Each structure stands twice: as structure tokens, then as C-alpha cells.
């Protein structure tokens, strides 16, 4: 109330009565008001931070592996079974293909093609399941040959590093199956697909990590 009266007084000041009123923006039409949409969602940022933490976790494991690997010129140690390089190489290709399919799925929903998204997510989940099955089968064989968690530092490192990655792939696969089910029910649209996007980020992370671990543990 007091503010209104003050404004009226200022408006009726004799000095300003004959003055030209200021104009704003000239003759141009005002620009359209843009909604304040953030460039990234909170979930996207949270998953990005999670990936940073996961990367540091695996960096710690790789650091431990480097200590034992470089300190031992003979690697694998004598009387220890050799790791299946060829089969795991094929498995690596399967896992890398799954990263391509999930990225294509993301592109499909950006175009609004929901059926293609569901199909590509199925392929991704199948590739992840095949990867885990082959890994599990090879693990059983290695256990049968005597490579256990406590048999040597070689076995301990192998099962810790590769096992941690397998647990991450398993978790990512469960997440992927949830996303697949949501995609089937039509949750994701051309405008809203952040759940799929974050799952894709996590999946690509675990896939991109694998060639590094394969090169270190199996080939180095």
C-alpha cells in the first residue's frame, strides 16, 4: 500500500509530468520466453558421479594387480592354470556388440521408434547374458583345474578383479531388464527417456571397462 502511494507520488512529480516516458525494447516484438530446462537431469548427474566412483574403485583394483604383476617377472606363476584367452576374446566381442546395440536403441527412442528400441534392448540383454554365461562356464573350468581364490595371489587377483566386473555386469543386466520392461509398456517417449539414457551410460561403462581388464589380466 505504502509502496503504491510512493509510486504514484513519483509519477505525479511536476518535473516528470512533461517528460517523455522511457520505452523498453523499441518496436521489436519481445522474444519468446524460454522455459528454464536444465541441460542434464539430476538422475543423469547422479549416475555420472556413480561412474566416477566406480572408475576409482576399479583403478584401485588395477593398481593392486600392477603391484603383483610387475613384481613377478614370471606370470602366471608356475603350476597355475592358464586363462582361456581365445574364448574370452570372443566374449569380449559379444560384450562390445552389446554397447553398440544399446546406443542404437537410444537413437531409436530419440526418433520415436519404440518397437526398434525394445528389439535392440532385447539384443543387448541377450549379449550380456551370453557374456555372463561364458564367463561362469570358464570359471567352473578354472576351479576344476585348481585355480581358486586362495590357491595363489594369481587366483586371488583374477577372481577379485574379474569377479567384481562380472558382478557389475550382472547388476547392469538387471537394470537393463527393468528398462526393457518399461520400454515395452511404453514408459519411454521421444521427450522422456532419461531412465534409458542412464542405464545406457552404466552399460557402456561396464562394457568399456572390460577390454582394459581383459588386456591386463588375460594378456599382460
Amino acid at each position, binding site marked *: 500500500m505504502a509502496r503504491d502511494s510512493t509510486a504514484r507520488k513519483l509519477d505525479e512529480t511536476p518535473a516528470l509530468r512533461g517528460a517523455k516516458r522511457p520505452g*523498453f525494447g523499441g518496436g521489436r516484438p519481445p522474444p*519468446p520466453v524460454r522455459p528454464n530446462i536444465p541441460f*542434464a537431469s539430476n538422475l543423469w548427474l547422479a549416475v555420472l558421479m556413480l561412474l566416477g566412483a566406480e*572408475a576409482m574403485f576399479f583403478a584401485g583394483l588395477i593398481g593392486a594387480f600392477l603391484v603383483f604383476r610387475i613384481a613377478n617377472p614370471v606370470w602366471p606363476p608356475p603350476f597355475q592354470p592358464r586363462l582361456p584367452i581365445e574364448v574370452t576374446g570372443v566374449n569380449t566381442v559379444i560384450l562390445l556388440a552389446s554397447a553398440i546395440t544399446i546406443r542404437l536403441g537410444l537413437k531409436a527412442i530419440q526418433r520415436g521408434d519404440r518397437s526398434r528400441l525394445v528389439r535392440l534392448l532385447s539384443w543387448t540383454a541377450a549379449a550380456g547374458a551370453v557374456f555372463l554365461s561364458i564367463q561362469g562356464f570358464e570359471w567352473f573350468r578354472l576351479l576344476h583345474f585348481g585355480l581358486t581364490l586362495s590357491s595363489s595371489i594369481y587366483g586371488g587377483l583374477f577372481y577379485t578383479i574379474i569377479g567384481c566386473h562380472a558382478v557389475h555386469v550382472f547388476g547392469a543386466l538387471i537394470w537393463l531388464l527393468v528398462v526393457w520392461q518399461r520400454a515395452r509398456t511404453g514408459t519411454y517417449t521421444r521427450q522422456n527417456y532419461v531412465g534409458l539414457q542412464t542405464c545406457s551410460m552404466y552399460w557402456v561403462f561396464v562394457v568399456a571397462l572390460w577390454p582394459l581388464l581383459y588386456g591386463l589380466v588375460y594378456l599382460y
Partner: protein
Amino acid sequence: MTKKIISLSLVFGLSMLVRSSASWACAVCWGGDTGPTADAYNSSVLFLMTAPYAVMGSIAAWLFYTYRRSAATREKSEGVEPLVHLTWNPEESGR
């Protein structure tokens, strides 16, 4: 009080000098600074030193890339004029 803290710190520091082997920072450095074990630790330490920079750099680069792409997409889709027109323009205002 300050004198007490300083004298206690001096006693602690001198005792560390006397029993230097017990106060080594790394409990596995008994092997010396050469040899495969030392090389292994050096390589691992170097790797772990670079890891946080690589991770934080990747996150920052990803954020920057996403921001640039988002801004470019928005400008293209809306065809919006720059926000500078919202400011008061003395030439166009007629004052």
C-alpha cells in the same frame, strides 16, 4: 600450553629419528628403492596418481560436451534470438 605442544612435538620427532625403521611411511619398503618390487610399487603409485585426474577430467569433458550439445540443439530447434535484446536499448527506446 603452546610450549607444551611444541616440546611434545619435538620429543615425538626425535623419537621418530631414533626409531626410524618403525616410522617408515610404507611398511613394505624394506626391500629398498630398486628391484622389481620397488618398480611395481612405483608403477602402481603413478597409475593411481593419474587415475583421479583422468576420472575428473573425463567427467568435466562429458559435462562440457553435453552442455554445448544441449545449447546448440535448443538454439536450433527454437530459433530464438539472443537474450541481449531483452536489455534496454537506448536507440530503440526513443529516449
